[in-house]
């Protein structure tokens, strides 16, 4: 079934059996776990999942239990894309030799550490070699599995255990690594961003990524209540606010041609709808220290930076 035929309605989703099963050990309100459960609903047939070490790997595979109703492989932290390379190479040759008849999709999953930091080399290599797989980054903006340390994907101003808010430093000093720009520079056929509040958009992008013959990259922004010090019940609210404030615009690029997805497009068309970053920052414990007079300049800088990236994105997008 192609993307066009598959409507991704709530009814469709509900009627499809879960492939990432309940009983796992994720925290209450876990954004990545909610996203994963939905993402697996967008698979189109036989699929192998491989995963980097991280929260979502740990919570779903504690022996002798598993949350995975799909064939699933974990080997290490920095090599989800290399796992995918090996699986794809094996499937390809065994299909050629007639040992495997069906087509099998491959999804590689990694957090922001396993994608933007320690896993970047393997990812870049696998994409350059053109293996047929969908790499999904679930970005919760830090090393949450090891107890909330900074990653290159942690935003400026966020307090983590390795960038604590102190008397001199207001949390992380550096800005978030633009991973999707890096992946787009690999001239991939499909690169997109998504977040679980806009679930239909996210699932459509998963399916499109699977339909590409060759590597595809999907950046899923997934709030982490433990790491962000937010209410577990507000995960999807922050997912929504990240888009409304243009902190995390959603878009897709097919063969390098980039288009905003509807929620972000609506803001581009009606800029007055764009919410200030403070709406997004408020209520997040990791940014609590910013709401003081001496750290006002950090909030100002974050607003300026968000606006600047948003403007740059608009220039890069094709007219609607």
């Amino acid at each position, binding site marked *: 079934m192609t993307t066009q035929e598959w409507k991704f309605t709530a009814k469709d989703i509900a009627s499809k059996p879960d492939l990432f099963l309940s009983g796992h050990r994720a925290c209450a309100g876990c954004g990545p776990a909610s996203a994963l459960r939905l993402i697996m609903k967008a698979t189109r047939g036989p699929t192998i999942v491989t995963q980097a070490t991280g929260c979502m790997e*740990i919570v779903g595979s504690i022996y002798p239990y598993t949350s*995975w109703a799909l064939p699933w*492989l*974990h*080997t290490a932290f920095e090599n989800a894309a*290399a796992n995918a390379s*090996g699986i794809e190479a*094996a499937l390809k*040759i065994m299909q050629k030799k007639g040992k495997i008849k069906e087509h099998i999709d491959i999804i590689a999953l990694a957090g922001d550490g396993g994608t933007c930091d320690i896993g970047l080399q*393997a990812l870049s290599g696998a994409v350059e070699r053109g293996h047929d797989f969908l790499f999904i980054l679930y970005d919760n903006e830090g090393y949450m599995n090891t107890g909330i340390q900074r990653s290159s994907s942690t935003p400026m101003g966020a307090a983590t255990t390795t960038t604590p808010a102190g008397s001199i430093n207001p949390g992380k000093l550096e800005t978030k690594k633009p991973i999707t720009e890096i992946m787009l520079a690999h001239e991939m056929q499909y690169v997109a961003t998504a977040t679980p509040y806009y679930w239909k958009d996210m699932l459509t992008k998963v399916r499109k990524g699977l339909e590409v013959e060759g590597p595809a990259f999907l950046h899923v922004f997934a709030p982490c209540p433990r790491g962000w010090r937010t209410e577990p019940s507000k995960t999807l609210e922050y997912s929504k606010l990240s888009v409304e404030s243009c902190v995390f615009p959603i878009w897709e690029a097919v063969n390098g041609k980039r288009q905003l997805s509807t929620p972000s497009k609506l803001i581009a068309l009606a800029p007055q709808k764009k919410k200030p970053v403070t709406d997004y920052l408020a209520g997040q414990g990791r940014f609590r220290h910013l709401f003081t007079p001496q750290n006002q300049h950090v909030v100002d800088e974050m607003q300026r930076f968000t606006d600047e990236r948003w403007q740059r994105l608009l220039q890069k997008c094709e007219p609607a």
Partner: protein
Amino acid sequence: MKSQVKQETMALNGDEAVAFAVKQCDVDVVAAYPITPQTIIVEKFSEYVANGEVQTEFVCTESEHSAMTACLAASATGARTFTASASAGLALMHEMLFVTSGSRAPVVMAVANRALSSPLNIHGDHSDSMAERDSGWLHIYVENAQEAYDSIIQAFKIAEDVGVSLPIIVGLDGFTISHTLERVDVLSEDEVKQFIGERQLPMVTTQEGKTVPFKLDPQNPMTMGPNALQNYYFEFKRQQEEGMKIALKKIQEVNSEYAKISGRSYGNGLIDAYQLDDAEIAIVVIGSTAGTLKVIVDQLRKEGIKAGVLRLRTFRPLPVEDLQNALKNVKAIAVMDKSMVPGGFGGAVFSEVRNALYDIKDHPTIVSYIFGLGGRDTSPRDLRKIFDELTHIVKTGHVEKEVHYFGLRE
């Protein structure tokens, strides 16, 4: 033993012999990254791929870490896999070597043994794979290019045995074997394929009670590479040791079976004993140095000196009983190591051999010789001095030094 089949004689260096063997083994996936002195293996294999001489998916990864990862993942998908590395490349794989053995993936790897930095040195010694001795891989070290060819073929049959299901390193001395042209007799491709057969997968029971092959398969979803906590991890590790025990038998079996078709065998597959039956002094060594030592032993025997050589072909699993039986009547032994154990007591092979012989009543005197690091040449004349020293020990009963650094400026 005479060969049962017609063989062709080729002029190959060790690396080419490895590549040629891999070509004949119907390998599904080769994932590798070039590094001296292993590079010829991947270059030669690339030629086979470019000319359509193999049905293999060749993945030129961006690092050795990814090469080993891809081999492991391909193996988990049911493929027969091969890679090659050396020195810094093997060190970069370090993490994945443990994951591969722990995942029971029978990956075959040729290691063209080379020194580790620093200082940087591209020449032959055993520092690289000795640093991986606890990684859970089987280790076989060869004496020459012929044995490199033969051992690669055997390696697939050993590693893929469902009882073993462990990855295997075939070590060949950098440059001394990897780059030296030798006469190599090769079997026909059909003969090799028939000998190793198709890869057999271990059968496992699913939650539903079905018996299915152990691989990533959408028909029978399996979680591979899970977390095992305090309550299960230890059992996983203990099971690996069972694989090692089975390998001890399997290596001998394969050595004999291979001898039947090729006419070539290497001791019992575990140890290669030369003139040891009545030997009073002996040297234990791994790799190509054994060839030179055998020549010296011939000379010594002519002079009436009862000298022998034990080449440890299989280092993992360590053939403890074979070592004991072969060396129990020897009076003085020198164990030669082409690697160091800084801060330890003698070389790695020395420690292992000495440990293995401890339980023999009136065990021999055993001394350690560290030699040849960074590719330093050790001449036959130098090697003879070691036997002279052993003779001196036997005569006087006195050990002057237990650990020698041999052939260097001090």
